[in-house]
């Protein structure tokens, strides 16, 4: 085995869902990116229902979307790494993330998998993660939250 197991990536794309996993994955990628001076882009995708046109002004007016990006930026800043925040709106999050990864030639796409307390609690994988795992051309990391007494 290699002495230095640090993963090599140059352009990482972080998917921000607006949950508790965001800070964890931003911190993780920032720590890994700092020594190798890799670029980090954090993307939050606002899904637009088919009942509205794709270019409807939704994401721009969403305070919560802006907050999600601001928090990610703050976390990266704290880790002394620069992060580019990107706000997108799309019909489906998974497809938007894959498109963005291709467009930016990202070599790593990182998603969080939060623990959901509803319905007895589980790690509901949803639609986005399987889509990204199936379609992203780059490496994909899915970071699952630890199960602690707090999350239970």
């Amino acid at each position, binding site marked *: 085995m290699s002495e230095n197991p640090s993963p090599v990536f140059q352009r990482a794309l972080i998917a921000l869902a607006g949950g508790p996993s965001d800070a964890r994955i931003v911190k993780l990628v920032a720590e890994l990116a700092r020594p190798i001076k890799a670029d980090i882009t954090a993307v939050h995708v606002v899904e637009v*229902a*088919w*009942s*509205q*046109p*794709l270019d409807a002004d939704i994401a721009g007016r969403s305070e919560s979307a802006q907050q999600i990006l601001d928090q990610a930026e703050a976390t990266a800043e704290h880790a002394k790494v620069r992060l580019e925040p990107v706000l997108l709106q799309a*019909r*489906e999050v*998974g*497809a938007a993330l894959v498109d963005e990864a291709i467009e930016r030639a990202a070599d790593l796409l990182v998603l969080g998998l939060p623990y959901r307390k509803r319905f007895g609690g589980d790690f509901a994988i949803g639609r986005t993660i399987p889509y990204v795992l199936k379609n992203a051309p780059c490496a994909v990391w899915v970071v699952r939250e630890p199960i602690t007494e707090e999350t239970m």
Partner: protein
Amino acid sequence: MFVLVVGGGKVGYYLAKELIENSHEVVLMEKDRDRAAQIADEIGSIVVAHDGCEGKYLGEAGCARADIVAAVTGDDEDNLVICQMAKRHFDVPRTIARVNNPKNEALFRHLGVDEIISPTRMILGSIEQDIPVHELLHLAALGEGELEIIEAHLQDGSPAIGRAAGDLTMPVGCSLFAVVRDGIASPLLPDMRLRVGDKVIAIGPSECSVKLHEQLIGAVDVEASPTV
């Protein structure tokens, strides 16, 4: 243009694909989840995996802002319901329905579907053109379907043979306007005498078929129903 396609069979699939290739915004509704997932895999995230016969889901699929709704499922009943909801409830400017049973065409028109596509009738028309028949051949529907272009192939025994076109008694609203003789089309003038082998082209309401048949082919055989 935003087009809502309902029905993810072969027709819906290729229709959506072509529309996307022509840079239109498309959403496709398919109630079978497996089929919906398969289409999404192949042509992208444009599939709503719900039943288009339910108004709630039509609304979610963006029916209210659709320029065109094309109902192309394999069920005429579903296609009719979808087009009616699109037209009456969501004010969609143009509705197009696939009609599998040609006998349902009149009902679709009566209930306000803007455009009707009947693959069965198209194939039937194509077959009839290649087979010498003594009946009338319905070539095309015009406008909202109240008028049809009809062809009569004159055979031995036709009461029109040897008579001038102007001497034939045409049903009200029906007129003969062209003749194809020896492969050459020309306007049918009132003094032109009709011959065996002529193909006479008429335009008129579909109800005039029986009278037209009597004048150009011969008395209608009550045992055999006229061509649809």
